[in-house]
């Protein structure tokens, strides 16, 4: 079987990654764009200094409010919206502007760097990837718009058509940004590109659309009322940013609480220490490999964390918590008890369904339950077996695929293990 050779690379784990050519390409082009713009601006000088300063301040303020974390999709929405609106700024209170694409890139980069100084001091500054993305997307929007505008191509586009043109340009920019983000994540983590891109695109209607709409509104509003529009309209976006931040905080707390609840079975001596956490991390990787979306992955992760919680209702612990070795009827009873506990916890009902059905025959199970079942069995079989244990465990799962473990899940598990994704940062 071909999988055998894949798995054998497990022994060659932790070989240092080579820097991927894509990453080098993105970073180099961002640096070239930034340096070129800077040189051009130094050569020609700044046009409309007041406007440049106002937008610079806006972007700096947005960056100062930056919030980074594993579950934050847009770290500095106000900064991003301000940068995009400066890239698409045509008029200022009715008078045409003259700044070019080079000036846009320079101002945005300078303001982003200034705004991130306090974060760098705390060790949470924007990463090179984020800066490269910012420079490239803003550069793309500005290069699409400014030269044509300054040549007067858009003069015959009247009112609403011009607004729609800005919107279309920004949407295109957002699409390119999503592709770029997915490509960067792909080359960093080696997770499959398709699901990553789908995740990025799915997130666009959320905070992404707010950023795009705000960018367009600000560019248009400055054209009508001048720079006063900036403070007036950044307040609503700051509000959005605040809601997003509080949402992220409560999600983070919630995840911690679920993990603690999951640890209850370990403390009570029903399962070995760290079992729930390892099953959750590995399930997430397998789910990602099978192309599950972000919300589905969250359900999967919570279900994997709590998959053994039904054991709390047992009077005597199962030996070493190894449920995969129990008779099927007993496994199902524990699963149903677990589902009942999970239903009480107020977690999404989908999580309870996965926990309940983890012991059903795999043809009747939802995908998440199949994953939890296979990964749990693998974890129980592979732990404490020394070198070669993972291989034997995988072989056992493959032989059991007829009824118990879904073949596609076992193959995904083999791929994940051979890719050594377990060393990737596990959130939570």
């Amino acid at each position: 079987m071909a999988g055998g050779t894949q798995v054998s690379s497990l022994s060659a784990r932790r070989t240092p990654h080579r820097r991927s050519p894509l990453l080098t390409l993105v970073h180099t082009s961002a640096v070239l764009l930034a340096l070129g713009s800077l040189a051009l601006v130094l050569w020609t000088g700044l046009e409309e200094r007041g406007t440049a300063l106002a937008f610079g301040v806006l972007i700096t303020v947005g960056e100062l409010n930056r919030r980074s974390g594993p579950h934050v999709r847009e770290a500095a929405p106000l900064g991003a919206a301000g940068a995009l609106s400066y890239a698409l700024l045509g008029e200022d209170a009715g008078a045409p502007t003259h700044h070019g694409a080079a000036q846009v890139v320079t101002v945005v980069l300078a303001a982003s760097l200034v705004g991130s100084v306090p974060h760098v001091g705390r060790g949470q500054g924007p990463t090179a990837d984020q800066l490269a993305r910012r420079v490239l997307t803003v550069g793309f929007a500005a290069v699409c718009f400014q030269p044509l505008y300054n040549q007067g191509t858009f003069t015959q586009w009247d009112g609403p058509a011009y607004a729609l043109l800005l919107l279309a340009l920004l949407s295109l920019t957002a699409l390119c940004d999503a592709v770029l983000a997915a490509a960067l994540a792909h080359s960093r983590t080696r997770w499959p590109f398709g699901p990553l891109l789908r995740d990025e695109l799915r997130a666009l209607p959320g905070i992404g659309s707010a950023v795009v709409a705000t960018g367009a509104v600000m560019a248009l509003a400055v054209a009508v009322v001048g720079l006063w529009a900036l403070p007036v309209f950044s307040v609503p976006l700051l509000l959005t940013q605040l809601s997003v931040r509080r949402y992220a905080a409560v999600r983070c707390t919630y995840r911690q609480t679920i993990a603690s609840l999951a640890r209850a079975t370990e403390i009570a001596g029903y399962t070995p220490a760290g079992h729930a956490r390892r099953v959750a991390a590995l399930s997430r990787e397998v789910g990602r490999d099978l192309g599950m979306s972000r919300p589905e992955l969250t359900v999967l992760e919570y279900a994997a964390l709590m998959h053994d919680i039904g054991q709390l209702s047992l009077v005597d612990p199962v030996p070493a918590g190894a449920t995969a070795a129990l008779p099927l009827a007993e496994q199902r009873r524990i699963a149903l008890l677990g589902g009942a506990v999970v239903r009480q916890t107020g977690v999404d009902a989908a999580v309870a369904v996965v926990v309940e059905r983890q012991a059903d025959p795999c043809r009747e199970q939802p995908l998440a339950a199949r994953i939890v079942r296979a990964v749990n069995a693998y974890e129980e079989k592979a732990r404490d077996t020394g070198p070669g244990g993972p291989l034997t465990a995988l072989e056992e799962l493959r032989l059991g695929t007829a009824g118990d473990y879904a073949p596609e899940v076992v193959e995904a598990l083999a791929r994940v293990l051979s890719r050594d994704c377990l060393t990737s940062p596990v959130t939570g």
Partner: protein
Amino acid sequence: MEAVPARARAYVACVAAAAFLCLLPLSAVRTPWWALALLAALSAGCEQAAARWRFAGTFYPVLLAGTFLLPPPAAALVALPGALLSPVERRPQGLRRLWRAAQLAVSVWAAARVHGAMGGRAAVESSDFPYALAPAGVAVLVFCLVLSLLDGGILALAERIPVRRAWHGLFLRSLAPVAVHGLAGLMMAVLWRSPYGPVAALLVLLPMGVSGWVFAQYHRERAAHQATIRALVQAVDIKDEYTRGHSERVGQASMMIARELGMDDARIEVLRFAGILHDVGKLGVPTRLLRKDGPLTPEERRVIELHPEYGHEMVRGISFLGEARAAVLHHHERLDGSGYPYGLMGGQIPEPARVVAVADAFDAMTSTRSYRRARPVGAALEELERCAGSQFDPRMVTALVRALSRHGWHPAVTADEGDELGVPRPRPTAAGWPGVRR
């Protein structure tokens, strides 16, 4: 409120009549009908979307844009279709819809009136910034004021809440969100009048909608989180039938002590969690030991005394608990150093742990266990005062005595629903708790 009192009905009728009077001059003013129709449709659509995604609060930007754009009667009309068609869950639905529509129409009319009188509409038309901000700000103030006045009235009449309490805070609480919606409304109005037209104005709604949606998600997630914390506590209750409801009562007593000591709200909340979760480590103690009747052997006692460390091990990953984690670890320490797990003395014991220790002992004494009856509150306090200084921190004991003399002891137990966990739960051994309202 199934039966609405007659005076509340009369009040709604009066406000509806006032709304009708506001709409009456509609034929006399020059009304841009297509703009009105578009805004009304938008407002109704936003209302439906807000109800569907369970936004917290109403979505005002469209109404306020109408206020800044249209003459007062026309602006008031914008509010009607959305309010009359909005889904209402509680009965009587017809009356509630009528009330909502009348209330919004009157408030919008008043705001538009003030805005127009200050020359706001001309300022919007000529996009005269920063002057346009002044009439808009005053209009938002008036809108909030009228809305909260009317709201307070209906609360006082229909729910029989005292007038002072009904109005208290209503205005200030609504001001900040409405002001932000007002800024968005102003931007919408300005863009509507600009050469870019309504298309550009529509874009303003997108960030506002996203913000409302995220906020609703936040509330949902927070509720789920609180349910999960309760589940943690219930997991302990399953194992240890004597202590049913004990955790929540200790949480409440800890909160009372913290409040009496003048701690700030965040710290009081942390102490409530500390009280609720103090025994979570009992999950790690074999059920057989927890349920054992009769004296424990020294070996068994040592196993039970591990529960603070188990509890700390469980909750140490939950960062929002902060100091509460130390309280879980140290709630069995005594001031004279004879407690466990570390035998800390006096000031070495973290303050939250000293609070929870007193609350824990108080509830243990005042609730019935299988091996003894509950003591009255007074006797329990005497016992606490006797042990103050050696076992308990006298400051905490005094605070508990003072708090109880002021508010009494009425613990509400919410974790009372049992058997759904699929585990037969033993019946409570005594008929009830003296002095405890169930």
